[in-house]
């Protein structure tokens, strides 16, 4: 009779858990279309598939980093909330992400991780802090208009031919960002040569249609506020420097006879730090992990905080009375007493991060999915994203199930032990 009460539960478990599990295992032995028995071929395909190999590597990385990371962060939060005022408010703030669906979390982080600091909050914050230190040059993206200027914008641009007093130096630049073109700019004018001096002009060597590179023409704007250096011909040491005027012209007066070089210093072209490429190939996995830790820290904190409050206070008091420092109390009393709780968090997180799927789908752009992929994601991609490789997908599922089993056994054993 007691067994009868189990029937409804057993029925639903059977329909939605037991049957699909075995059907998937059976399916993994058939071809993608399900019309041919292929034995273990799908498993061979799986282990030789490059994307699945990356997925396995990434899953290993997740299992190494995430459970430890989440437990550690949760432990720190739990211990700290015991000591701060407004502990409840703090706990709620840390716990809230858990109430948001993982997919929504992914969408939020995808937006925050955008590379352009104008769009992505993470890079905006980094650039904001960094912006206090670094400064943008007046012409951050300019390029030389002809081969007469050599060097790179990052190292400064130098006029290739040496100049002597009485010469005119023409420093033409193009590819100037729209917002860096002087709005009320004055047309550049080729300056007159100066007896015993070097004159020249820095100008935007471009007008609609392109114009003739290297020639100062009408409609081409002078660039004001550019620092021009006069360098010694031999050593290349800067001798003098000056700033261009409104029409982009500059002059070094009373220069001794000899050969010189005219250059625009690299500070003119300084590009501000534009932020990290979070969603690029190399940072995508850490980026997704950070998002995951952000979600799970709350869960870990709540469980651990519950464990903490169950620790007998008198043990802690006794240790303190015996002269233990706070760190010793934490290390020798709190952590060992918390060990069972920490194991719960740890094992749960192993299982949780083996099945991560939605975060990869939501955060990784198409171009870095191959680098961010995890087994559960790969299983979906092969079977359902239009590829319809059901045989391969079932094989990946079955493999994933095998990976779960040890941790499930650990968990079940622990439940039993606790029940006793």
């Amino acid at each position: 009779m007691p067994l009868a009460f189990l029937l409804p539960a057993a029925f639903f478990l059977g329909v939605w858990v037991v049957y699909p599990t075995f059907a998937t295992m059976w399916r993994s032995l058939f071809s993608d279309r399900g019309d041919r028995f292929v034995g273990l071929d799908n498993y061979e395909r799986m282990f030789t598939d490059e994307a699945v190999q990356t997925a396995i590597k990434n899953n290993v990385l997740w299992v190494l980093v995430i459970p430890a990371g989440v437990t550690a962060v949760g432990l720190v939060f739990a211990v700290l909330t015991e000591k701060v005022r407004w502990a409840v408010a703090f706990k709620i703030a840390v716990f809230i992400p858990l109430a948001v669906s993982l997919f929504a979390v992914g969408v939020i982080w995808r937006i925050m991780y955008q590379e352009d600091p104008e769009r992505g909050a993470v890079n905006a914050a980094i650039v904001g802090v960094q912006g206090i230190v670094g400064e943008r040059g007046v012409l951050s993206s300019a390029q030389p208009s002809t081969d007469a200027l050599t060097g790179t914008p990052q190292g400064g641009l130098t006029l290739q031919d040496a100049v002597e007093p009485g010469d005119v130096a023409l420093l033409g630049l193009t590819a100037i960002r729209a917002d860096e073109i002087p709005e009320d700019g004055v047309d550049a004018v080729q300056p007159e040569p100066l007896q015993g001096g070097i004159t020249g002009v820095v100008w935007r060597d471009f007008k609609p249609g392109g114009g003739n590179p290297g020639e100062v023409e009408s409609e081409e704007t002078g660039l004001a506020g550019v620092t021009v250096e006069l360098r010694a011909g031999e050593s290349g040491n800067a001798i003098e420097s000056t700033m261009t005027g409104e029409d982009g012209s500059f002059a070094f007066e009373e220069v001794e006879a000899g050969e010189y070089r005219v250059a625009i210093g690299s500070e003119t072209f300084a590009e501000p730090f534009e932020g990290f490429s979070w969603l690029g190939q190399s940072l995508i996995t850490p980026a997704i992990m950070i998002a995951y830790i952000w979600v799970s820290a709350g869960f870990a904190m709540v469980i651990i905080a519950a464990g903490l409050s169950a620790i007998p206070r008198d043990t802690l008091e006794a240790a303190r009375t015996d002269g233990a420092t706070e760190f010793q109390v934490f290390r020798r009393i709190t952590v060992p007493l918390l060990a069972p709780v920490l194991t719960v968090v740890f094992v749960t997180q192993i299982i949780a991060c083996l099945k991560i799927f939605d975060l990869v789908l939501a955060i990784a752009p198409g171009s870095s999915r191959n680098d961010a992929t995890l087994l559960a994601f790969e299983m979906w991609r092969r079977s359902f994203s239009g590829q319809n490789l059901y045989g391969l997908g079932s094989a990946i599922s079955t493999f994933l199930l095998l990976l779960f089993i040890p941790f499930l056994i650990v968990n079940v054993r622990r439940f039993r032990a606790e029940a006793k």
Partner: protein
Amino acid sequence: MTKQRFILLALLLAMLAFVAAGCGGDDDEEGAGDGDTTAETTTAEEEESVSGSINVLAVWTGAEGEAFQAVLDGFTEANPDVEVKYQSATDPATVLSTSVEGGNPPDVAALPSPGIMADFAGRGALTPLDFARETIEENYAEGWLTAGSVKDELYGVFFKGVNKSTVWYNVEQFEAAGVEPPEDWETFLSNAETLAASGTPAYSIGGADGWTLTDLFENIYLRSAGPEMYDQLATHEIPWTDESVTNALTEMAKVLGDTDNIAGGTSGALQTDFPTSVTQVFADPPKAAQVIEGDFVAGVISAETQAEPETGFNVYPFPAIDGDDEGAVVGAGDVVVMFKDSPAARALIEYLATPEAQEIWAERGGFTAPNQNVDASVYPDEVTRGAAEGLGGADFRFDLSDLQPAAFGSDAMFSLLQDFLRNPDDVEGTAQALEAAAASAYGG
């Protein structure tokens, strides 16, 4: 306490009903199977009096969903005894492949690509459309029939078309740089240099979505190798290591390798999704001067930017590469297929192939009809009218990646071209990797 019990009981009953309904699906299908034999004899004479209830599944939601519903209403007006239930799914391939596996597909569905159609046809889930062949041949250019066939058997009729051979540009930036829309590839590339010198990168590339890159490749390939080679590559009769492919990749590298001339550089392009690649061309200040994509760009521009047609944005056809390839158009479309045969489903398919059905949506805008007999005057503006004309032409070719097995055409090909965007110098390596992926997709 009693209340709780009552709720539990109600829940249990609801679940049982749900399970029962699921099992009942099979019976329905058998019923439809029985209908088969009668259908063949009756449709010919009694076309007027079809009746029954059919389910239609397609990707269209929102305004597009309403427009499609209007098209379906046109059908039910003519056939009052038929009840048509429309269901939209953002990812029809997934929904359908599970419902086919479960033995309960909708009667009629619009698939986003013929590659998916070929998958279902290969699994024997589709019914050939021979009954409608006459109507379709009357109304469609050859390229559409080929794209709708699998192994010479006609399985699909295209309902909504896309012209992918268009380039959309920011008019102000073109004026500031003093360039005109180009007609040939050389001018296109020299325009790009001029645009760079003016201070605005020439290209906006949505490289986070691989399909924008396959579209670019297909446009270049169709023009540089010609329609015949294109057909051979589409069916994998020539390998991807063929010289025509490496030539096309070399041309493509002239765009992708011009990294200073791409909005955000290479890494920026790899993270830019398609909608952003459009909006950033018309942002203030613009991040690039032009974006190469199909006629659906117009929808994104009008929905998400302030740009006005002709003064803010405009469009030109993808430039000719070989000289004699004017009018070569790469296109795509949604293909309507029949999963369950019934007189009502047959009547609906025939109806969707007619110009009348397509004009209903064309009038509402945002629709390019693949049907060549659709009256051009119904289009609400010049831009869609021009795009639609290209789709009826003889040099129309269907989007090559959509014709591939999904594992290649909508996965491996995407990521390999994204790798190519990362490293445009590696033409040979890319061609070899494409061939390896194509071979495994065709072999398996």
